[in-house]
């Protein structure tokens, strides 16, 4: 089984988001980048399934410029066998999906795993697009993934419940909790990661279809109105008469 795990390089979850003064770009200064938290589920589950099968390979793929390599190496340290970086700034979800689809096709991967969505652009798009480009099913978002031979059984989260879906390889799935316990690199992993192959390839395909023109921050709160605990019930009156939400 050949697994392709797509990882996105995103600002750490504790990042306070700011933009350049013209609001045109995300301000990267001092920001630490991590593997997108949901992609860690995809990576760990691929490694677990490979280990359980006793054979197979796990390749990590990132579409990004050279500054994403520390996180690609981290994925190798966690247990991926090799890596590919498509050397381009990720222009939009469509552009990223084109790159992933091209690599998946060329490498004849059986299982293409991604995260549920990126925590920076929150697209929830790339997995569906890749599935459609390759003409194969996409199961998103998946909370559980088990494999038996070429058949996968997944639990897909829907609003208010879940669906059990069975698909054959090749397929795309986007992963989220509680699929597995994401692994962290150990010392041996970090050592071996240095020498694992990381191939850099140029981008292909058509240009992006969307363009970000400006960013904005949510409006600030006016300040909190405190109600004494002794007369907590007064809060309910305020919610009805002042805030008018109940």
């Amino acid at each position: 089984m050949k697994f392709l795990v797509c990882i996105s390089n995103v600002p750490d979850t504790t990042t306070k988001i700011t933009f350049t003064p013209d609001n045109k770009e995300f301000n990267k200064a001092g920001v630490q980048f991590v593997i997108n938290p949901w992609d860690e589920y995809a990576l760990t589950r691929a490694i677990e399934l490979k280990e359980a099968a006793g054979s197979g390979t796990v390749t990590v793929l990132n579409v990004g410029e050279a500054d994403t390599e520390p996180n690609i190496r981290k994925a190798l340290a966690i247990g991926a066998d090799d890596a590919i970086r498509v050397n381009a700034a990720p222009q939009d979800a469509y552009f990223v999906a084109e790159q992933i689809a091209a690599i998946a096709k060329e490498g004849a991967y059986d299982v293409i795993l991604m995260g549920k969505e990126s925590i920076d652009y929150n697209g929830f798009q790339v997995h569906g697009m890749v599935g459609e480009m390759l003409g194969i099913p996409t199961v998103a978002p998946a909370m559980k993934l088990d494999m038996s031979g070429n058949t996968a059984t997944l639990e897909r989260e829907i609003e208010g419940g879940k669906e059990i879906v069975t698909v054959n390889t090749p397929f795309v799935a986007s992963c989220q909790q509680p699929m597995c316990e994401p692994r962290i690199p150990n010392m041996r992993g970090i050592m071996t990661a240095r020498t694992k192959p990381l191939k850099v390839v140029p981008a292909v395909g058509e240009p992006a279809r969307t363009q970000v023109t400006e960013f904005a921050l949510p409006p600030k709160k006016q300040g909190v109105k405190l109600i004494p605990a002794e007369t907590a019930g007064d809060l309910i009156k305020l919610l009805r008469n002042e805030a008018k939400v109940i």
Partner: protein
Amino acid sequence: MSVLVVVECADGEVKKSSLEVASYGAEVAAMLGTTATAIAVGEATEANLATLGEQGITKVLYDAEPRLKDFVNNAYTKLIATAAEQEQAKIIILANSNIGAAVGSRLSVRLKASLATNVVELPKLNGDQFVVRRGAFSGKAFSDVVLSGDRKIIAVKKNSTEAKHEAGKTAEVASFSAQLSDTDFADAPSQVVMQDQAGGILLPEADRVVSGGRGMKGPENWNLIEDLAKALGAATACSKPVSDVDWRPHHEHVGQTGITVSPNLYIACGISGAIQHLAGVNSSKVIVVINKDPEAPFFKAADYGIVGDVFDVLPKLTAAVKELG
């Protein structure tokens, strides 16, 4: 040319988020000087579909194929693509749900359309530029995105726009067939399992949410959260550590790595207000924080606060709601 709105139904009813999407679609159609047609998916009744006229929809297409009751990615994609061709729709609008966004991304490739998900406002038309504002950085910011090309798909975030009701207006319900065959249903789910929702209210669509954190001390105390939620007609939610230790199910976990909610009212009980939690709730219209620590960071993001013990405060709030009647 028209605007095509994808309306999700369940148990015969149009979902709340789809009423929002229908209103949104009708407004976009008005901006462009055209009409809005809906295509219904899921289990619907003609009578309920006709009421989409109240949201400004003129015509509703409905394919009565029984296998469309549950979400099947391929079949839904083909159904909507066929409707879009028939209606010559240049703009397709869906809910940013696990159905809408999943179908939207496939459709964008199939119909060569540009796509924006998580959209929070009506589009702005600057000359021939079509700009939408969408949520980014998991609730920490917004980005304005230009959608290019002849066809555009928009997935609208739940609770970010309001459903309008013009009583008495009805839409024409037209039967429609996308001629779906067995192969279109190859990825159909073998089983659909619904959870019991507190009071039957789905968290992502809820107008009011009562949420508990580690300060609730243990799952045995959740009746305090549930009682207040029930009195308010609210859904229940929790912080990540609470679902990580299985005090509550995962689908209740809100935040940057859980679900993002934007209810009118979010009441946080014994939650400290970590940046990852705030990201998932800060687009709520009114935030109430109950915490015994006056320094808890959540108070900075709150509209109303009570510095106090949840075990003392929650029963008082529940009683006060019941008194209101």
